[in-house]
């Protein structure tokens, strides 16, 4: 398939004897949003820097749009837009001046730059503040400006490192929406994040990182299926004695977890009616019973708990 724009094979990065990234394979297609998810220090940012040619690869090969970042870093950087973790701009310059500097570094002509900057700022909703100093911008606005920079480059590949960290829910929602827009442009988007639930919503495929390796890879439902078995998750809110035990006793239940007043029931098939009956029969008041999509958070926690138990 010629659609693949990022292709990394058995990628390794060692710092002394410590392997920050320990043999990962990765491929991302055009128009696909791929999530690199995992805790801090799992090797996500190191992987990204290797893809960009900003840090040396210890072992393995990378191909980005037909170029190797170690041999042709300039060609790779021309094709890749990068939004670093907590991006910074020159505070004393305006938003459009900052972007113009990037345009010059990228080698765009002056008239071309003007059009690109205007279009990109409009897309991220910053046209109104184009001539404001970046020093006055909020975190969310800077993040959007960073995204504008990626859009402006018209890159085939966009690599976004923790784009939503530190943003309020509203700003996160807007940003994710813009990222979906990039997908429809045909850009391959690689998002790294430790906030699983927020990012899961936009990702076509995800890779869960752990200790420099990809522990799991696939679409979110696939992973849920693989890790959780059934993949049916229900949220139950009920008053009464011993709800947890009642729920666990329902046939078909695999796991019950308690989160405050809420019980999360993991089941191998649709057992909603059984749950309702069991709670009522147990003398409890059923307040809420809802179907929830299997969350990546659950998948992740379940998987690594299983790992821990397995090795213990």
């Amino acid at each position, binding site marked *: 398939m010629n659609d693949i724009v990022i292709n990394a094979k058995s990628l390794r990065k060692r710092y002394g004897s410590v392997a920050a990234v320990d043999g990962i394979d990765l491929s991302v297609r055009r128009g696909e949003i791929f999530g690199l998810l995992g805790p801090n220090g799992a090797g996500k940012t190191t992987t990204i820097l290797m893809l960009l040619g900003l*840090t040396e690869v210890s072992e393995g090969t990378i191909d980005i749009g037909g170029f190797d970042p170690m041999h*042709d870093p*300039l060609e790779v*950087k021309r094709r890749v837009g*990068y939004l670093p*973790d907590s991006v*910074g*701009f020159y505070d004393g310059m305006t938003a459009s001046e900052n972007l113009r500097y990037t345009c010059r*570094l990228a080698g765009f002509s002056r008239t071309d730059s003007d059009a690109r900057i205007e279009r990109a700022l409009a897309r991220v909703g910053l046209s109104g503040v184009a001539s404001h100093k970046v020093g006055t911008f909020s975190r969310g606005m800077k993040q959007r400006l960073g995204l504008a*920079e990626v859009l402006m480059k018209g890159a085939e590949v966009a690599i976004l490192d923790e784009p939503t960290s530190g943003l309020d829910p509203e700003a996160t929602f807007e940003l994710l929406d813009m990222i979906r827009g990039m997908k429809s442009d045909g850009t391959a988007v690689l998002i790294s994040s430790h906030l699983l639930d927020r990012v899961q919503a936009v990702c076509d495929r995800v890779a869960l990182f752990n200790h420099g390796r990809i522990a799991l890879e696939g679409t979110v439902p696939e992973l849920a299926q693989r890790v959780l078995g059934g993949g049916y998750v229900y949220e139950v809110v009920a008053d009464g004695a011993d709800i947890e035990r009642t729920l666990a006793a329902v046939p078909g239940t695999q796991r019950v977890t308690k989160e405050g007043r809420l019980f999360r029931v993991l089941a191998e098939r649709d057992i909603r009616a059984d749950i309702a009956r069991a709670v009522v029969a147990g003398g409890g008041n059923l307040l809420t019973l809802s179907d929830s999509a299997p969350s990546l958070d659950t998948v992740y926690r379940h998987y690594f708990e299983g790992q821990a138990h397995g090795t213990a």
Partner: protein
Amino acid sequence: MARRSGSAFTGAGTVFLKEFADHLGGARVQILEWLVILTGAGAVYTAIQDLKTTTGQDPFLFLRLFTQARDPLPSFVLVLDFLVPLIAIGLAFDSVNGEFNHRTLSRLLAQPIYRDALLIGKFLGGLAAIAVALVTLWLLVIGLGLLTLGVPPSSEEVLRGLAFLVVAIAYGAVWLAVAMLCSVLFRSAATSALAALGIWLLVSVLWPQVVTFVSTAVYPPNELQILFNQPNPDQLQLQQSLSRLSPSTLFGEAVLGILHPTTRALGLVFMSQLEGAVMGTPLPLAQSLLLVWPQVTGLIAGAIILFVIAYVVFQRQEVRA
């Protein structure tokens, strides 16, 4: 490592223009320049007061503008000797770590440029800013001289003045490279500034004492020399070699050779070597330049070596926090 493709200079021009514009527009540079202009003006003013009384006696009157000193003010040259490093350090102490701390470094390096371009652009941008400051200052001094002395400078004086300007810029380049190296080595801007200023103090102020101490320790004078109060030639030789490690010494010697045309040698000279020399007569310009050539190349080489060290360290540095 495999050879990389593409030019290391792609984008260097853009970085240069941005840095240059930042320096010229920045408050920091304006403060430093006013400092130099005010001290320089004071030095030149007193020099002019002195020179007015001796207008007819000196064939190189204009050059005296730079070197004449009257207590308590130092000469213009000494002001530069002291303040050029300060400007250079002020311009570059946060040039690389500043990008890092403002989190702009990884964003810049994700653009299609090499790290080389960033460092070269920044260095040349700073150097251009120093050059602009020094040229302005030089023109002010010459202008002030024309107005107050009422004698036009001879062509040789102008040429010697220009040579002095070039040496001063090379001197600035050395300190710019020192400050840039500090900005690569230290992630904190305050630490970097402190380290650069520490080196400046050591090299400009403490170095002469250190050099005397070390050279006397290595070659202590023998009894005869103590008796006749004669210096030990070995000791003097070592003292001079060591002191020339300081850019301040090189600058001082180069300026001495250029602005005092009567200077015939910058090192130890035995009486036998002076046979046939007419003392007190000025050397032609070409001979003066030949005399200070090692000092000037020393300054330029120092700047290049320091820049290369900064470059190597920067290339190996990780971009991430």
